[in-house]
């Protein structure tokens, strides 16, 4: 009897999972004993960490986009047809075209999306770099910027938690390169009472901010942006004026999750080790869309994909699996235009940033090109 695997979502998590499964189950795919169907809403696959570099004119937009079909093993069926409903009780995903995809195993990898509209005034008053068009607009605004106060502020929740810090360090070097650093005040704000969620990273960043003259304020949760007067107001009752505002928008999960009654704000209830959706042993969840209290980041999705692909392979071939996710996350952290550090951590091991180096920066730049091998399940 053919086993049908449906993967909803063609981002990092869905793509890595699909390709690893295709490799592990190659013989079964050839023999027609396994079918892998991927359902996604876009024909293109975008390397989202590249947006940060687009904002500073370091990468061209076309360098971070590939056709999803070209990234997938040829034995995987691709349907560019957004999922509109997931019916777990009847093991079926329904797409916008009306097609029903029945499954024996489901992988939910629907990711997250920015919701700037949740902050009044965001669209009118703020720039960000979490989408292609927004990153290009920010790039253009930075090109024209001639001095003043640039405020960096962070919505909750958001993916890629080190990106605001990276942006701030890179902004410093960008302004220095353009000889307008002395005419600019960089003002970084953060929602909790330190510079970053990871305490060792926050402690590491403080002296670097002070050395570079970057001002900062913590316990700063933007609630409203007054675009006319160029002011950000916070939940904490404070306000801050700006000349250029770079605000990380808050995020939500995909609409199909909420519309299918699978989790508030689009986050799916997920077992932190088995990565199964609570109550459904044949439904796995990877990447941003889990409700796990860990970083929403490409590396998280990648490591979870390794586990889910291993679990599904063993379940199909041997009836059970012992593979578990340990909470592993790895992040490079750019500390300017020519140095970087990195952190790794899991549920039990706290992070410990290494001293920044040119070598780590080059590794990050190298990974920006090697990502496509990760997506293909090779790296």
């Amino acid at each position, binding site marked *: 009897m053919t086993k049908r695997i449906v993967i909803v979502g063609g981002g990092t998590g869905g793509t890595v999972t699909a390709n690893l499964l295709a490799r592990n189950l190659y013989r079964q795919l050839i023999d027609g004993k396994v079918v892998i169907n991927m359902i996604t809403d876009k024909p293109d696959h975008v390397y989202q960490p590249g947006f940060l570099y687009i904002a500073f004119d370091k990468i061209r937009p076309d360098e971070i986009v590939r056709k999803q079909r070209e990234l997938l093993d040829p034995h995987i069926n691709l349907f560019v047809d957004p999922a509109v409903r997931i019916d777990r009780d009847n093991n079926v995903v329904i797409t916008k075209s009306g097609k029903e995809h029945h499954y024996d195993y489901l992988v939910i990898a629907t990711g997250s999306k920015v919701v700037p509209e949740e902050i009044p005034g965001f669209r009118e008053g703020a720039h960000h770099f979490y989408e292609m068009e927004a990153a290009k607009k920010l790039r253009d605004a930075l090109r024209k910027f001639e001095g003043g106060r640039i405020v960096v502020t962070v919505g*909750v*929740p958001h993916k890629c*938690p080190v990106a605001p810090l990276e942006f701030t360090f890179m902004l410093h070097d960008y302004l220095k390169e353009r000889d307008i650093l002395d005419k600019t005040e960089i003002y970084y704000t953060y*929602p*909790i*009472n330190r510079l970053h*969620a*990871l*305490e060792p990273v926050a402690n590491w960043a403080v002296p670097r901010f002070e050395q570079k003259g970057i001002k900062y304020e913590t*316990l700063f*949760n933007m609630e409203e942006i007054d675009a006319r007067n160029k002011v950000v107001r916070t*939940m*904490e*009752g404070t306000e801050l004026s700006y000349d250029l505002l770079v605000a990380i928008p*808050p995020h939500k999960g995909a609409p199909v999750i909420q519309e299918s009654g699978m989790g*508030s*704000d689009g986050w799916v209830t997920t077992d*932190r080790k088995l990565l199964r959706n609570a109550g459904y042993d044949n439904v796995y969840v990877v990447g941003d869309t889990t409700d796990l*209290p*860990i*970083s929403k980041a490409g590396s998280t999705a990648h490591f979870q994909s390794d586990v889910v692909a291993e679990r599904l392979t063993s379940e199909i071939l041997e009836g059970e699996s012992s593979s578990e996710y340990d*909470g592993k*996350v790895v992040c490079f952290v750019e500390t300017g235009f020519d140095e970087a550090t990195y952190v790794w*951590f899991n*549920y*039990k091991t*706290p*992070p410990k940033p290494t001293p920044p180096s040119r070598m780590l920066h080059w590794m990050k730049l190298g990974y920006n090109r090697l990502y496509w091998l990760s997506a293909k399940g090779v790296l």
Partner: protein
Amino acid sequence: MSELKIDRTIDARGSACPGPLMELIKGVKSAGVGTVIELLSCEKGTTVDAPAWIKKVGQEFIDMEEKEGYWRIVMKKIK
């Protein structure tokens, strides 16, 4: 405190990033007024940080207790 009806549990145990306070902020933002939220955290620092933030933003801090290997902090969204 054990008799209080909890509307939402935020289990942030083992969360290095985004961490318990960020998880709480996320939970408070998406909750309706009147929601009673409990936050579970293994980080001792949360016992200081979370009540301080709850008070700073004008929400109601209800109680805190140490359990086996973690802390439980309870608050109510009142505005």
